[in-house]
């Protein structure tokens, strides 16, 4: 259980890192937190000839909160984002999901951008990038480009990043006011890979559901967003047809069986978790919506 030999590169800047990636191409792999990559190396499921260790690259460890998004650099550890109060205030879904990412010792080392670039369908943060309609910022030899979440995930462990591109940051888009979010997953042991997980965002305007979406962990091949607005929209949260939403989820997911759970069990679980998180988010969004109406009465609408 030892990695095969590799050449270690320790660039100090994004330009230098991209330069190395350009030289080594498909023989290179980026090492950030390494909490998914190093197990793969230890088990020799992969043996890249070059590792581009970006841990000494400066300027990649910041969390920025703007009116539109929460932007995090490639070296922001899960634990750092989880504890960031500004990010939590702007987008509570981040902390709601991060608390389910592996165990604290893994979150102390692993990076959120790395987890997204790894694109494991059992990862929580790819599902969050999808649900927030987020963007990946990538730098390659030709410059910088932005990749929308919908175009980023191509398959299991496969993204649209080129071999010579470095994902330098991601932006999770904030939801419109009146939105509440919730996340839940079920694992055999807390912190293990989930058998199924569901993230949801529900927007309530004038007391009725205007929009409802969900994304999934471990039960879809790539993180996809299911729009539940047609099923839930136009009704008050208390009257929402959650069973119909759960059925839509059961039809949407494509779980596979493994030693932890059968495909049917995972499908059932996804439906049930969706019912619970939708109820939670819809209830909270209704509360927010009522509160906002009361406090902003008389002011111009924003």
């Amino acid at each position, binding site marked *: *259980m030892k990695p095969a*030999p590799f050449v270690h590169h320790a660039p100090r800047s994004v330009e230098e890192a991209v330069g190395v990636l350009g030289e080594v191409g498909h023989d290179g792999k980026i*090492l950030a937190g390494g909490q998914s990559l*190093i197990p793969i190396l230890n*088990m020799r499921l992969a043996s890249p000839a070059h*590792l581009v260790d970006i841990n000494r690259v400066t300027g990649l460890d910041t969390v920025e909160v703007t009116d539109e998004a929460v932007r995090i650099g490639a070296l922001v550890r899960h634990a750092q984002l989880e504890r960031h109060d500004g990010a939590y205030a702007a987008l509570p879904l981040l902390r709601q999901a991060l608390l389910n990412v592996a165990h604290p*010792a893994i979150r*102390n*080392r692993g990076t959120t951008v790395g987890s997204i670039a790894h694109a494991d369908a059992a990862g929580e943060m790819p599902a969050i990038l999808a649900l927030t309609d987020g963007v990946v910022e990538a730098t390659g030899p030709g410059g910088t480009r932005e990749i929308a979440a919908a175009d980023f995930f191509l398959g299991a462990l496969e993204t649209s990043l080129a071999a010579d591109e470095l994902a330098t940051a991601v932006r999770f888009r904030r939801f419109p006011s009146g939105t509440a979010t919730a996340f839940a997953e079920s694992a055999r042991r807390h*912190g293990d890979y989930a058998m199924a997980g569901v993230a949801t965002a529900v927007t309530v305007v004038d007391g009725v559901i205007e929009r409802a979406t969900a994304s999934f962990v471990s039960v879809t091949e790539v993180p996809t967003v299911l729009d539940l607005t047609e099923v839930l929209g136009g009704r008050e949260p208390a009257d929402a047809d959650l069973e119909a939403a759960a059925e839509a989820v059961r039809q949407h997911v494509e779980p596979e069986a493994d030693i932890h759970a059968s495909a049917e069990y995972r499908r059932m679980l996804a439906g049930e978790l969706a019912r619970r998180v939708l109820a939670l988010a819809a209830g909270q969004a209704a509360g927010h919506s009522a509160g906002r109406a009361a406090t902003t009465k008389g002011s111009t609408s924003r």
Partner: protein
Amino acid sequence: MSDMTDLSTAAAEELHDVTVYVNGVARTARVPARRLLSDFLRHDLELTGTHVGCEHGVCGACTVLVDGQPMRSCLMFAVTAQDHEVTTVEGLCSAPDARPCATGERMNPAQQAFAECHGLQCGFCTPGFLTTVTAYLEENPEPTADEAREAISGNLCRCTGYQNIVKSVLRAAELRAERREETYAAQPATRHTGSVDGEAAR
């Protein structure tokens, strides 16, 4: 056959001088880039208190503190730990709140609690529990039993059934609080001045 292959590639591998501050001491060794931090500690620095179980981050036995935060030493390369501070189980007994125990050795609150509450049997997983619990109590000094169980969810023990480990975490929190009080009582000057001198004394 496979040994020979490994030897021949090892001979061709580039070596790096890696310096890591381990338990407060700068330690340097010349290692290949693929040397895991866990193996660096055990093989190169001969600090065998850090145990290696699964080598893919699941069991938690190899957990050490990197810059004070618990991390899996099997999921880090020594070259990446360059210039960082690492605390292993061997370093816990020199913590300010470690005290001599019946055998004369020093133990920090977590170590003392695991001994008192039978928080270990074979002891293989224990170094990982001790580092994890020590760091956890820094952030959560008064955990409930449920929180204690959650705190150790990333560490596997195949002997105890965890009941006594949860008790040990709670006991460690008590010991830690008691020793903190003692430290304050014993050093009134440092506490009350809060001056530049007081800062420098720490």
